């Protein structure tokens, strides 16, 4: 039983480091801020989550701690990238675009004004 848990954990760690590498490659390779943000966030969220879960499988007494960390990453990582992307858009950072595709521009008219909500 312990042997299988160890193999599962090692597999998860390899999987996670692969995705972390892909995220780093995406940050290096992508053309503009928004693409880099998306590549970095998606890949590194999955990578870090599975890596820490793998540590939890190898050391079963750390499982609860690593599950808490996984939940934290699952919330914090997309949230931070959302805040970064939103503030970049609000400060008029132009995306690199081949076609004119700005979906947020149409949505922003429907959404309630932010000053009313606080």
């Amino acid at each position, binding site marked *: 039983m312990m042997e299988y848990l160890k193999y599962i954990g090692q597999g998860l760690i390899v999987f996670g480091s692969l995705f972390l590498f892909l995220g780093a490659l995406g940050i290096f390779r992508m053309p503009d801020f928004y693409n880099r943000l998306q590549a970095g966030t998606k890949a590194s969220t999955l990578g870090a989550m599975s890596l820490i879960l793998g540590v939890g499988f190898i050391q079963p007494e750390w499982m609860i701690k690593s599950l808490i960390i996984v939940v934290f990453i699952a*919330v*914090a990582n997309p949230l931070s990238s959302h805040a970064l992307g939103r503030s970049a858009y609000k400060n008029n950072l132009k995306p690199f675009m081949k076609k004119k595709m700005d979906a947020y521009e149409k949505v922003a008219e429907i959404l309630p004004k932010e000053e009313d909500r*606080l």
Partner: protein
Amino acid sequence: MKKFFVIALLAILGFYLTIAFLQIPFGQNRLGQPQDEATVGAYYLNNTKEKSAVSNVVTAIVVNYRGFDTLGEVTVLFLASTGLASILYRRKEEEVERINKPSSSLLQTGSKFLFPLVVLLGIYVFIHGHLTPGGGFQGGAIIATGFLLMLIAYQKYHVSHSMLTWVESLAGVLFVSIGLWGLITGGTFLENSYFPKGVLNSLISGGAIPIIYIAVGFKVAAELTGVLDILLNTKEEKSVPSNQNEK
């Protein structure tokens, strides 16, 4: 006359400092190996386990052997935050306006969920200061970042400064009173050997060291939170109606 006095004072000071430093052999390895009993590092490494039952030697040095220095550091931080507050703090909440712009509802909901986890991590770091790397200063800084998240996400989020002052003062009083208790019972300030030691490597071990680190953690958290709350507020510019001035 005054110059002569200053030069004489400096000469006396320099003379005694030179005597003190000449006693230390120059160029020798004072940090040394754990095997060499005569050196400072060997003393700490060999005696921390038996004398204070702390598995993290760095914590034992920071809180116990050099606890007076740590008290000074905490005092420096206290003075910095007090000075900042005396310049920038505004008592009336109507006059205050936040620097940050309104954030999205996604960020607000998410930070409500993340805030307890961040505070939990901070408390974990300073409670385990005598077992794992980290301690009061680090844990307090982590808690302050949790408060910073809430302050950024919500424009109307206010930290009660009177409560921060209470937490900070009580933590400082706890630190100093533990030190004075050591002075009364053991003869030196922050003497640790008169507290029950506990078992090495367990959570309750090390005598007064975890208690001091918890106090330092609360103190640093309160101070840094106060600093952040003050720095995020600006005074609202009052627009004076123009026709009133003309009359």
